[in-house]
């Protein structure tokens, strides 16, 4: 076997000596050029491979929407690339935090609890409204595209104006308000297990506005209550402890022109809800309640 090793060496030596002796024939020139090209090709391939390996193994490429109305030169929306070292179990929010803390401290986004409870970090990730803290990077295709929620005014980078959303949420009076309080100051207001089960899913709303952003109808009509507000109304309207007159009042609000009837069952809200609330189902049930409420046979 050891005799095999020097063989290529002697060959190349021969070749070079031949080259020195003879003037360069066109065919030889051609071959040399090809060789050079092959080498360049190989180097290019190696470089690309190395890059690929790097991106496969330990970094994730984020494309993040950037916009800052207060800084000249940043007023034109653009996308910035961040290569974030990947760690097992890393979420989009983790990656954003890393990008902000390591690469660009001006990168702005809302976040707080990092466990899908505060509802501050809903972004438009790879073409869909998702919670940054609840979305695993390993589940996404690269590059991961992070944009602010659509159909909301962008304040800066990934921060959008939530005022309209909060207004809609508050307009349906999102608090428990019973007709009658039980006798005795310390008496509990008990709910049956069945009733609790009925409203259970609707209580999970974290006000992240993902549904509102995904809703095509809410996008075109600022007066529409939107899925989140209607779901909130459902939570109280279906709560038996509130009493009949309170429920009537809630249904009166919901059955207005821009209440439940604007919903066209596109199911976008139900698809994107990070807390898996069956929003469309709740809206449809309220539609039926509203009809039953007004339908009279005489």
């Amino acid at each position: 076997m050891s005799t095999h090793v020097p063989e290529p060496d002697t060959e190349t030596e021969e070749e070079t000596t031949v080259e020195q002796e003879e003037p360069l024939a066109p065919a030889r020139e051609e071959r040399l050029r090809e060789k050079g090209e092959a080498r360049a090709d190989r180097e290019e391939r190696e470089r690309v491979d190395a890059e690929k390996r790097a991106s496969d193994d330990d970094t994730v490429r984020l494309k993040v929407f950037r916009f800052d109305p207060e800084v000249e030169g940043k007023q034109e929306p653009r996308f910035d690339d961040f290569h974030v070292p990947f760690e097992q179990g890393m979420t989009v929010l983790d990656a954003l935090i890393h990008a902000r803390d390591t690469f660009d401290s001006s990168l702005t986004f809302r976040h707080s609890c990092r466990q899908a409870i505060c509802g501050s970090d809903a972004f438009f990730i790879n073409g869909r409204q998702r919670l940054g803290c609840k979305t695993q990077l390993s589940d996404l295709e690269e590059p991961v595209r992070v944009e602010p929620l659509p159909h909301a005014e962008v304040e800066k980078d990934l921060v959008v104006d939530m005022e309209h959303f909060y207004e809609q949420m508050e307009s349906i009076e999102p608090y428990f308000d019973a007709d009658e309080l039980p006798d005795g100051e310390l008496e509990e207001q008990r709910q049956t297990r069945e009733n609790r089960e009925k409203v259970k899913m609707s209580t999970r709303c974290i006000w992240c506005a993902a549904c509102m952003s995904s809703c095509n109808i809410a996008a075109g009509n600022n007066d529409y209550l939107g899925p989140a507000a209607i779901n909130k109304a459902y939570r109280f309207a279906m709560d038996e402890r509130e009493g009949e007159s309170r429920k009537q009042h809630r249904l009166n609000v919901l059955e207005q022109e821009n209440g439940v009837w604007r919903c066209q069952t596109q199911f976008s809200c139900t698809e994107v809800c990070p807390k898996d609330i069956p929003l469309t189902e709740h809206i449809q049930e309220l539609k039926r309640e509203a009809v039953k409420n007004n339908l009279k046979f005489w």
Partner: protein
Amino acid sequence: MSESYDRGLVEDFGRWREFSAGMWAWVFHKFTGWVLVGYLFTHIAVLSTAISAAGQTQAIAAENDVYTTVITALESLLVVRILEVGLLAVAVFHILNGCRLLLVDLGVGLDSQDKSFYASLVLTGAIVVASVPTFLAGVF
């Protein structure tokens, strides 16, 4: 919600690639609905030729009254036959998706609303393909 500037393709129908089943169902339902409304007008226009043909007993017996001539002239055109296949496709989808929406309104099977949309698409395709020989018979 209002916009501070145009975010281009991020918004609305520029995102059609990201639409889910429910959204496609809505888009198709709207589209087919408007096509059917448009058809209704041409339908009335063609049928109203029967008004001027009314009472012309001899012409009707000889099959050269206005209504019969219009209908046969239209039916002899390949374009009209192909449009008829299209009309069937549109109507069948609208009917099937309408049934799906009925179930959605009643709150039945909301978890499989996407499957029922795909089912109505497949069924529409099958019915249309099966009807092609009937619609195109005798036009060539």
